[in-house]
């Protein structure tokens, strides 16, 4: 029976090529880490990724228009602003009941409010916004330019990191209780592998394409972590189960190989269904959520890779090293003396 269960010719021998996977993982992660170090040192914000208005604050500019601006026109305003070189503008239409301009005796029906990351002393950026809006609404009058603080302070960010660290600890405790400590630690390593890749990916995008992350990015990373952990546990669960039934018939590397292959269809199909939804959101969805969706796509792809090739082979490598240590002459001597 074990012959057919453990060796099917279509299977991928993940364990055999483990150095290929480890090398590939390094290749995927190291550039991102370099980019993050570079960003932390060179950016004025000292964040490993380029952060947007949510973290840094910026400027709020408001224009009154006599015409009623419908929410559908927001898209046009956004496209024009981006064309004029204003990045990630937060555009909101205000229906004011007692606007600032009341004192100035203008009767506006609508206010176009634009929040951007530039600092309020940047007159050029202010002009660009003005020109871009006036092209569509000739009677637009500038009523307010003022600085605006971050909606997500550094304190909040640090707080979230603490929460996350504690959540990781929770995962390790639970998994070492349900599995074993080494499974738990490796699940965490593989989770860090995926999170680091996403962060690094966006750090690189920040350097070369000036992509700024917003508050939603944090949620995207959390989603990736959740997914990655889920994936890894499914493979580990199979290894645990196979160990129970097959330990006497097969070696640990054989069990790992069998488990990965048995869960392969599930791993690919689950990721595929999630990626289908995300791809639809990326292609057909709104402009403001594109980076958020991209972060999840990248993260789920790497999460699937790491659960198939990285986490399982790392577990096998770890077990092999432990075995080797146990069987080494020094260790043998120790156990012998212990017996005496």
């Amino acid at each position, binding site marked *: 029976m074990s012959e057919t269960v453990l060796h099917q010719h279509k299977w991928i021998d993940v364990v055999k090529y483990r150095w290929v996977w480890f090398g590939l993982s390094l290749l995927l992660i190291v550039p991102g880490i370099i980019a993050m170090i570079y960003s932390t040192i060179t950016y004025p914000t000292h964040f490993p990724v380029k952060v947007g208005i949510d973290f840094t604050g910026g400027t709020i500019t408001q224009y009154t228009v006599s015409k009623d601006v419908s929410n559908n026109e927001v898209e046009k305003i956004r496209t024009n602003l981006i064309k004029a070189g204003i990045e990630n503008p937060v555009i909101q239409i205000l229906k004011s009941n007692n606007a600032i301009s009341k004192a100035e005796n203008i009767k506006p029906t609508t206010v176009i409010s634009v929040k951007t990351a530039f600092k309020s002393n940047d007159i050029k950026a202010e002009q660009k916004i003005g020109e871009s809006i006036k092209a569509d609404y000739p009677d637009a009058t500038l009523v307010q330019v003022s600085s605006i603080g971050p909606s997500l302070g550094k304190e909040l960010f640090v707080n979230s990191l603490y929460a996350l660290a504690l959540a990781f600890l929770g995962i390790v405790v639970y998994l070492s209780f349900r599995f074993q400590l080494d499974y738990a630690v490796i699940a965490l390593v593989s989770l860090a592998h995926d999170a680091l890749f996403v962060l690094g990916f966006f750090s690189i995008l920040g350097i070369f394409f000036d992509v700024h992350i917003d508050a939603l990015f944090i949620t995207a990373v959390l989603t990736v972590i959740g997914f990655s952990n889920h994936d890894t546990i499914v493979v580990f669960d199979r290894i645990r189960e196979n160990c129970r039934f097959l330990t006497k018939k097969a070696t640990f590397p054989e069990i790992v190989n069998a488990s990965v292959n048995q869960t392969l269809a599930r791993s690919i199909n689950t990721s595929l*269904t999630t990626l289908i939804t995300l791809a639809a959101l990326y292609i057909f969805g*709104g402009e403001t959520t594109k980076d958020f969706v991209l972060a999840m796509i990248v993260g789920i792809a790497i999460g699937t890779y790491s659960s198939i090739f990285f986490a399982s082979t790392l577990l096998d490598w770890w077990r092999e090293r432990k075995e080797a240590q146990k069987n080494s002459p020094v260790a043998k001597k120790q156990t012998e003396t212990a017996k005496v």
Partner: protein
Amino acid sequence: MKNKKLMFWIIVALVIVAVVAIVKKPTKLGLDLVGGSRIVLEAQTTDTIAKITPDMMNSLQFAIENRVNALGVAETLVQQTGEKRLLVEIPSISDPAKAKEFLGETAELEFKKPLDNSDGATGWAPTGLTGKDVKKALISTNPGGQWVVSLEFNDKGTKKFGKLTQELVGKPMAIFFNGDLQSAPVIQEPILGGHAQISGGDTGFAYEEAKKMVDLLNAGALPVPAKIIEESLVGPTLGADSIAKSKTAGIIGIGLVMIFMLLYYRLPGFIADIALIIYSILVFAIFKVVPVTLTLAGIAGFILSIGMAVDANILIFERTKEELKAGRTLFTAINAGFDRAFTSIFDSNMTTIITCVILYFLGTSIIKGFALTLVIGVIVSMFTAITVTKNFMHLLFGAGQLKHPGWFGIKQSEIGKAYEATETKKEKAKFGILD
């Protein structure tokens, strides 16, 4: 089989209840999705505060954030703008009039004693005991059945209050809130326990009045008085254009997933699709009943939970297919498939739940919303995978040998080839044990 039919009707009833809840209850959408009100507050200088410093603005922002949280509004935006203004954006789900009332109040609580009457003047003198010394405020009723505000002082406040009441035995002590005299009871005996009550004078408080005072006291006073200088309705922060597009995109995405499931898993895929629809109805109903304010972060949590719900089905089907290929009968294969998939569903979901609970209690705004929707989604997904999918599979396929392998997307030639078919006893198969 009787049990199965009963379960089927329970599921139907649940779905009906959920649909009613969805129709009856309003959807609560966050600021990023529907917009709300924008209120601009300006810090005011007073006799004692000559200039507004950045430090004052920071503590004002903190105090306002606390107040908005006390209102129970999810994900409100509070930002400093200019040198002495705060821009507050509140989702339209909350009552803007109430929010306005909350934001403008300084909420200064003061205890005062009578002026020394040596020069004949009447009035009240400050005692140094203020709202800062209050640890907690509660709403309660006095023996007369009137609404009162009960205060519990912190250690420092307890000492101050004890000393003050000792000093004032036989004399009145006045309680001022926002500069208005609330009541001035005559102190009968020293109060050392650190508890005090504010009654609304002879007429008493209306419930709303007492409730508001309690909420404001618990949220803390503003370090500087602030005035609302501007108020307007504001569109969603994510842009109305983006949201409309993403809605369509989401529907396309879920439609594609359903087609994929149908093509790959055939008849079980069809069951998974129905389970997915039931799943979405149940989760959405819970969102409305709790109620959860949906923001994009929350929707991300929901999408992830859909992924996990689909995954539970995929896990079960893959295991069932393996069992069928091993030549087991339908009934045994379905049961064994479920039991063997369950440990991985359980463990992966438990870690997600643990993570969510920690993130919910320790995280802030955006992370809280994410954790809440995800945890609801994951719990419901375990329920639908185990009850809905399993129940429908049994009802649809019944027992006996698999006559149409194509229903499961497997070929006749694959059956029995995986390993030698041995019939497992039903009792054993229930626990996923193979011979």
